Each structure stands twice: as structure tokens, then as C-alpha cells.
């Protein structure tokens, strides 16, 4: 039986923050193999849009749907298909990189240490696996957070500024990972100022100032 492909739709989202009308009727749609870059000046609600799309923030108006169902009703299924990497890397300084991954990824799927090590290897921080995150540089932390995104193996990625704190090699790595993910029919919603060097299947959503 053929089922409709996985898709994320955000329809006419309105969000107020106190008196500020942050998001004014933003809509977007994302299907398999697509990458949507959200861009725009600071303070235009890019992070807010991402938080709405992943269900952390309930919009005053509008709806977010996953495979055609409003996410409020299918929260567990939606969340297990989703990985969100916020601006903060969500790592505990007192735990090692590996422990950090194990505890957060482990909530979503049962995972073996070797898989986690492979993910750290892929993002180039395998050497730091057993170091407390406290001693890592900002760029290395970003890479550990990327390893978490990889290890979750979710079809839908939502990344908030994945290029910050990364050197040229790191940025190239993010682009590579995004390309691989998208060509494997994954979906990605990325907030970035940075031009993403992906010609195929990249769309941009510019939020007005």
C-alpha cells in the first residue's frame, strides 16, 4: 500500500511576544529530499519559527501539520521523526561527549555505543568522545551537537544556525551532511545567514524585517 510521503506543513503562523507581532502569517512546506533555508535579519523570528515548527511553541493562530495531521494530536510520532538542534548545543559540561549523546539520543531510540562513536567520528570529534564537554572549544561542541543530530537518524532535521563557531572545514562538513541527508530523502529546515552551497533542492524563505 502506498502511503503519502512524510511532509511538514506550516500554515499562516502568527506569534505575538507581548506587544510584538513576531511572526505574521508565515507558511512553509517541506517534503522528502528538500532543504529549506530560513533567512532574514536579526529579530525577525527565525528561531521562533523553528520553535513553532517543532512544537515547542504554540502559535496564537495557524497550524503545524506533520503528514497532514496537526502535530498536537500526534506529538510522540512527530517528535520521534524530528531532531532539533537549537542555538545552544544542549550539552552538559560535566558529562563526556559520548555520555551527552547517549543520554539524549537514548531517550528516542535504543542505540549502541559504536553507533555513537561512528557519529562522532563522522563529525570529526572522535578524539573528544571521552573528554568532559567542559574542556571542548565552541566549535567542537557544535560538532558534538551535530553528531547528536546524525545519531538520532530522524527524517526531519531542524537546525538553528548550524554554521556558527565552525571553521571552513566545519562549514563544509555541515554542507556535506545536509547534502547526504537530503539526497537520502530526508528533510531539513535550516536557519542560516550563511549561503548553503547546495544548488539542488534548496529553497529559501526570507523573513521580512
Amino acid at each position, binding site marked *: 500500500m502506498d502511503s503519502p510521503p512524510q511532509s511538514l506543513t506550516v500554515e499562516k503562523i502568527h506569534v505575538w511576544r*507581548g*506587544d510584538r507581532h513576531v511572526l505574521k502569517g508565515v507558511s512553509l512546506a517541506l517534503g522528502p529530499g528538500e532543504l529549506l533555508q530560513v533567512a532574514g535579519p536579526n529579530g525577525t523570528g527565525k528561531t521562533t519559527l523553528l520553535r513553532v515548527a517543532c512544537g515547542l511553541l504554540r502559535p496564537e493562530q495557524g497550524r503545524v501539520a506533520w503528514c497532514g495531521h496537526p502535530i498536537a494530536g500526534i506529538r510522540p510520532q512527530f517528535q520521534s521523526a524530528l531532531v532539533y538542534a537549537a542555538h545552544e548545543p544542549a550539552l552538559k559540561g560535566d558529562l563526556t561527549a559520548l555520555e551527552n549523546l547517549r543520554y539524549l539520543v537514548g531517550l528516542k531510540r535504543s542505540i549502541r555505543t559504536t553507533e555513537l562513536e561512528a557519529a562522532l567520528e563522522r563529525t570529526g570529534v572522535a578524539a573528544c568522545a571521552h573528554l568532559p564537554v567542559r574542556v571542548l572549544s565552541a566549535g567542537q561542541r557544535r560538532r558534538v551537537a551535530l553528531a547528536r543530530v546524525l545519531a538520532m537518524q530522524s527524517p526531519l532535521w531542524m537546525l538553528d544556525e548550524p554554521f556558527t563557531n565552525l571553521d571552513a572545514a566545519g562549514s563544509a562538513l555541515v554542507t556535506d551532511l545536509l547534502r547526504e541527508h537530503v539526497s537520502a530523502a530526508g528533510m531539513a529546515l535550516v536557519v542560516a545567514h550563511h549561503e548553503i552551497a547546495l544548488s539542488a533542492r534548496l529553497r529559501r524563505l526570507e523573513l521580512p524585517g
Partner: protein
Amino acid sequence: MWTWFYRLASPPYVYRTAAALTPWLMTVAVIAIVCGLIGGLGFAPPDYQQGDAFRIIYVHVPSAYMSLFCYSAMAVAGAIGLIWRIKMSYALAAATAPVGASFTALALVTGSLWGRPMWGTYWAWDPRLTSELILLFLYAGVMSLRPAFEDPARGDRAAALLSIVGFVNVPIIHYSVQWWNSLHQGATIAKIGKPSMPGSMLWPLLTMLLGFMCFYGAVVCMRLRGEVLNRERQSAWVREAIKS
């Protein structure tokens, strides 16, 4: 029934209705309070045990009653707001809090002034007064939580949740304080309020109660208008209403 419910949720309707209700409620309140005062101070006979000191009952009991009533109203309004996401019921909860807290403070002060001739001290850790004091702390918690949030919508919801939790706790606090007091029997002598009261003592009390209720209604309507304006600052109807 539901259309009525939804109309109540509409800010302009609430704003206009509150404005229309205020003078009526205030008139009834003033009349009832004056009648209650005349009855309580003039016509009610002195208590056979407490003499004229018992007349404090005419402000103490209504304010103590209102303190609980306001807290319940706040919790119920908060629950309605959380369940149906109605902004106006948060506005009602926010308008109720300071009024309820002031009644609680009044009940405490009058209770302790009543306690002085009865117990020989202003504060005897009487169970009712102690519960009333804790209720004041609960009000303080709700009232300081709401403005702590930069986003008023979140402050409203947080305060609503806290008032519901507090509401569930009020009976527990009340009975625990009574249990605690039973350990130290002998500290309190006089029991406030008699099981049976002659009519000439009772009717002024009920009239005062009615007066306090209507007074609460009038003051909340006035505050509610302010809350509605604060919340709907951006909307067109508010601007029209203020311009004219």
C-alpha cells in the same frame, strides 16, 4: 449557552458590559453596606458573652468570606483560561487577585483586633487566622509570579496554574492547621462565630455579605476594564474606544 460563553470571551463585549455593570453593582453595594452597618451597629443586641466587641463580626466575617471567594474565583477563572484558552478569564483572574488580597489582609487585621479583647493578645495562632495568613501568602505568590514574566501571556498562564495548585491546597492547609492547633489546646479560648444566631444579629451580617459581594463585583469590573485595555492595546476597537 455556548454563544453566551463565546461572547463573554470577546474583549469589547467584556469591556462594555463591565462599564455598564459597575454603577449598578456599586449602588447595591453602598446601600447594602450602609444597611448592614446600621443593623449591625445599631439594632443588633450585644452578645451575651463578648458584649459589643462581637460587632467586629460585621466586617471580619464578610472579608474572610470574600478572601476565600476571591481565591476560588481566581482559580476557576484561571482553569477556564487554561482549558479553553480564553484571554478574558485571565484578565478576570488578574483583576481579582489584588481585591482578594486586600480582603484577606482586612480579615487578618480585624481578626486580630477582635482577638485582643477576647484572648488578651493580638495574635494567638488561632487556626482560622493562621489559615487566613497562609492564604495571604498564597495570594502573594500568585501576585508576584504574574509580573515576573516578560511575556504577559505566559505570566497569566503561570499564575493561573499556581492559583489552581493553591486552590487544591487550601482545604489541606485549613485542616492541617486545625490538627496542629488541636495539639496546643488551651491557647485559644473564644470561638469565633456561634452555631446559632438570633435573627437580629444575622440579617445585618448577611446584608454586609451581599454588600461586600457587590462591592467586589464593582471593583473587579473597574479593574477588568484596565486589564482588557492593557491586553488589547494593539487592537482597533480599543483605539476607537479611547479616541472617542
